[in-house]
């Protein structure tokens, strides 16, 4: 049920090892008119990226390793620096996302365009996705 029937639906890849998060955000984004692909690990995500880049990716920070999300960000940005990526994390403080004011230099090498801290609310996610896709 998208607006403009002849317009291609934009694809979003969600990567998270948390089944419930995938289910929730997937349903919400589909209802918002996006085509959703899901991956449950860094490894599965790499396979999905090999089949083609999504219009936007939402990646969890910690999966197989503590920096899985950053690795995926890097892989996507290497192929298309303009492709938006949202980094999701369970706790802001658990990661590089909790920058002090002095850590601006460190922020530069985190390639994500936005970061969200769980629990992520449906409207919050849709708003962020629309902003990054300039809809």
């Amino acid at each position, binding site marked *: 049920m998208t607006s403009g029937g002849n317009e291609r639906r934009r694809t979003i890849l969600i990567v998270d090892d948390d*089944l419930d998060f995938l289910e*929730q955000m997937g349903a919400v984004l589909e*209802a918002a008119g996006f085509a959703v692909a899901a991956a449950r690990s860094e490894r599965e995500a790499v396979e999905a990226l090999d089949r083609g880049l999504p219009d936007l990716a939402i990646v969890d920070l910690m999966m197989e390793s503590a920096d899985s999300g950053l690795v995926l960000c890097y892989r996507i940005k290497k192929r298309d620096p303009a492709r938006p990526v949202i980094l999701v994390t369970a706790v802001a403080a658990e990661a590089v996302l909790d920058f002090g004011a002095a850590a601006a230099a460190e922020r530069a090498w985190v390639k994500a365009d936005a970061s969200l801290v*769980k*629990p992520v609310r449906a409207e919050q996610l849709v708003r962020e996705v629309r902003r990054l896709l300039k809809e």
Partner: protein
Amino acid sequence: MPETLRILVADDEPGMRAGIARALRDFTVSLPDVNVDVCFEVEQAESGEQTLEKVAARPPHILLLDYKLPGISGLEVLDRLQAHRSEILTIMITAYASLDTAVSAIKRGAYDFLAKPFTPEELKITIRKTAGRLILAQQARKLAQEKRQVRFQLISVLAHELKAPLAAVEGYLRIIRDRSAGADEAAYRRMLERSLIRTEGMRKLIGDLLDMTRIESGRKRRDFADVDVADVARMAIETAMPEAVLRHIAIALDAEPPITMKADRGELEIILNNLVSNAVKYNRDGGSVRVAVRPEGGAVVVAVSDTGIGMTKDDAARLFGEFVRIKTEKTRDILGSGLGLSIVRKLAVLYGGDVSVTSEPDVGSTFTVVLREPVIPAVTP
């Protein structure tokens, strides 16, 4: 390494102070029970005022306090030390070894008293007793601190384990309330199903936690009777059967009943239910489970084998800890509290045995529990 206890000698006679210092210079006390050797460092004060100053600057562990000090008397010093009472043990030195002085000193917080004149040997006996008391109190405090630490860690992990499913259910409820998934009714049904699965997980966690605390506190009433372990195994298999049938997993019982032992049936059920349900949960579809029960030299050995995902040696080594769950792509959708095997181990230990595992990734695992009849205190009829 020996512990050093500081002793402050408060006496106006220089000879008495020097004598005590000399007697304790090379004196050590061994406390083999707690594996501690104690030696002493002696400081001196010649008046009540100086005693209070020295205590304020650096409180000693033991205060040898003369009853009759010039200026502020020994008893007054004792009164003013009320604030330090729990940390400093005071031994009153008195020339008037009457019951009255002893009683009034003890009433004011002194730990013991020495009657003048005393021999170095008498001094050492009193010091040995006092040091023992101090070190034991220290050890008890340390132990209580460690226990608090362990409890704190357990609660932190537990909070996390409950927060995760709660957050998931909350997320589903918000989406359902706000109809954020649009008109996709199948999606809402899936969300309700997932919510129920997650709340069931929480219920299981709470149940396991109660089992564990009951076992650990030792307050649970244990009803010992002759229990047929083979029958307990048969019932555990029946309990696991619905899930096994769904996933085409065959379960076989290898036992020649009855195999009886004195036990609390409820406890054996917890052990068998955990092992058999794990063998199904972590199996592959179409796999099999074998439950063997056999008597062996006065003990009963239960072995539960599966044809499941198995695990590495490293994972097997940490498997029986509290809240340990082996996280791999194969286990990520299997719900569990992370307490089951830790409970099995605690129970096995209660039965003078233990639980062990042999495993090979992608081939399967065998969990073996050895159970011995507990020594039951005789009950008067």
